[in-house]
């Protein structure tokens, strides 16, 4: 395993090293970052089958726009972890701040602690599994992908939702505009079972409720104006 020490190296050098290693291929696929000290934009823009472990907590946008790589944060992550992820896996061992997985288009984000507000905001295909709770306005304007919450969800879950699928095991403080509870059919159990297994999540599909879009806001109707 190669080690990059942010106490000895600057951010640009660290990211350039990881980005080059990711695209170059080769045998050096395992990396660790020590002394992250809450730095922003750590391990961003990776595009290749790299495995990066960050030993500590990170600032904003860790693993932003990730493709193919696996990034593990052995600590907590600041706002926007794995934002706009395209593919690959990001695992946060601790908690995640606001906007976790925002606008993500693919890949898997696992938060083993809690995620703050707007988790999965505007998600476009990413799968997110949160072992704890998620804050208010999670999955706001979520377009595609799956958000799984083993704990509770805050206010206005799934507000202005498009086609993303939401599963919550605990309570939901309130649903956002156009978000409704839906029937759990066999295909949803299968989808959830696969996702829980891939995330290593300690839960069973039958413990969850499913939420999705009522699709009342898809084409403007004055009688629904109060929901806008």
């Amino acid at each position, binding site marked *: 395993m190669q080690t990059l020490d942010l106490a000895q190296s600057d951010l640009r050098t660290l990211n350039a090293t990881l980005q080059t290693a990711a695209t170059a291929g080769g045998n050096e696929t395992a990396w660790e970052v020590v002394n992250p000290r809450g730095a922003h934009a750590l391990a961003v823009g990776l595009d290749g089958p790299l495995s990066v472990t960050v030993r500590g907590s990170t600032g904003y946008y860790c693993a932003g726009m990730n493709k193919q790589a696996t990034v593990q944060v052995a600590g907590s992550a600041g*706002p926007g972890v794995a934002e706009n992820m395209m593919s690959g896996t990001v695992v946060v061992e601790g908690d995640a701040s606001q906007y976790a997985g925002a606008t993500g288009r693919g890949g898997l984000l696992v938060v083993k602690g809690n995620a703050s507000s707007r988790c999965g905001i505007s998600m*476009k295909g990413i799968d997110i599994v949160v072992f704890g709770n998620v804050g208010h306005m999670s999955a706001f304007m979520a377009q595609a992908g799956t958000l799984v919450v083993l704990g509770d969800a805050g206010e206005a879950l799934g507000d202005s939702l498009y086609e993303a699928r939401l599963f919550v095991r605990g309570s939901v403080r309130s649903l956002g505009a156009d978000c409704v509870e839906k029937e759990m059919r066999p295909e949803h159990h299968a989808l959830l079972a696969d996702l829980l297994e891939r995330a290593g999540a300690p839960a069973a599909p039958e413990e969850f409720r499913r939420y999705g879009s009522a699709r009342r806001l898809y084409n403007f109707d004055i009688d629904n104006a109060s929901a806008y």
Partner: protein
Amino acid sequence: MSDDTPPRARTVPVQSATFSPEINAEIRRAAETGIYDIRGGGAKRRVPHFDDLLFLGASISRYPLEGYRERCDTNVALGTRHATKPLELDIPITIAGMSFGALSGPAKEALGRGATMAGTSTTTGDGGMTEEERGHSRQLVYQYLPSRYGMDPDDLRRADAIEIVVGQGAKPGGGGMLLGQKISDRVAEMRTLPKGVDQRSACRHPDWTGPDDLEIKILELREITGWEKPIYLKIGGTRPYYDTALAVKAGADVVVIDGMQGGTAATQDVFIEHVGLPTLACIRPAVQALQDLGVHREVQLVVSGGIRTGADVAKALALGADAVSIGSAAMIALGDNDPKWEAEYQALGTTAGAYDDWHEGRDPAGITTQDPALAARLDPEAAARRLRNYLKVMTLEAQTIARACGHNHLHNLEPEDLCAVTMEAAAMARVPLAGTDWWPGKPGGGL
């Protein structure tokens, strides 16, 4: 009763200035349909504009340059502050962001081709980067918008610059809108949306709030792209002094400021006409902010919203801009609102020059549509030549004025070359009212 009674004198019918026929018609339309009026374009109301400024030209105190023989350069570099690969443009007129989705594929291709032939850049829009525009644009600016539709790090890396869109002049504080008629299969796939649904873009970015976060977002984008790309920040004209200062603080290389005449693909008419500042009112405060921070010309200023002629270009540059950007004018150059389609405009209940229902996707000129038959009406190569010609003409016009003012580069134009013909324009542009050395608000006061 006799019929030869003289007619009783009557008052002439008077239409209310407050309740004009247009206002009354809009009240009836709203009452009937239950939806606000949505349209494309920018503010149509009369506001102080570049037409209210005049150049003084040369005289005994200044001598002009000889047209066609003495050089007047037009090049500009955008992104010299931090980016290792600034955009080097031959002319200071760029093509503004317009989305594939709002515009057809051939229209986007024509913009790329025309801009490239003229030596300038074009810009993507809400909905991602298409192969057509990347392939035909030598210098392409990739917009980074609140919706993040089609946002792809590979596109970031193959762009020549990145424009973070905070707002636009037609609707500062508002989000995007693309109604279901234009969400074709391809547009739906690019935006990860079901076909035919109304696309509602957010008005704020999903993962940052305020200038402190923005600074970190810019850091992330630079780290992903190796600090090569210029980072533009586009803002709607509202509080240009403070917004420009905050853009500089956040680390932008280029500030793009868009006045209320700047167009949009579709939004509420009430928003377009009643929110934001005229373009003319934005420039001097933005320049003042750059000067106060000691970064005028180091951080470039691009002005957009109602730029139509070389005179407009020259006036914007004289007030301190480094470049301008055009959207509506570029569409007209391609063929938008051309009178040759008048019969079809009439059938749509409008007329050439006034057609602004771009969101309906029925554009007779084949530009603001996703209908394959209509889109096929636009020959991208011929439209590109028209755009190239128009850009060349505007550049020549601006050079003509600059030479007449004695300048060998468009960037040497300065406020002292200008006067204003209205009090409002004098106040906004901070140049003297014609024939005086005074403008409203001038430090030190009177004549």
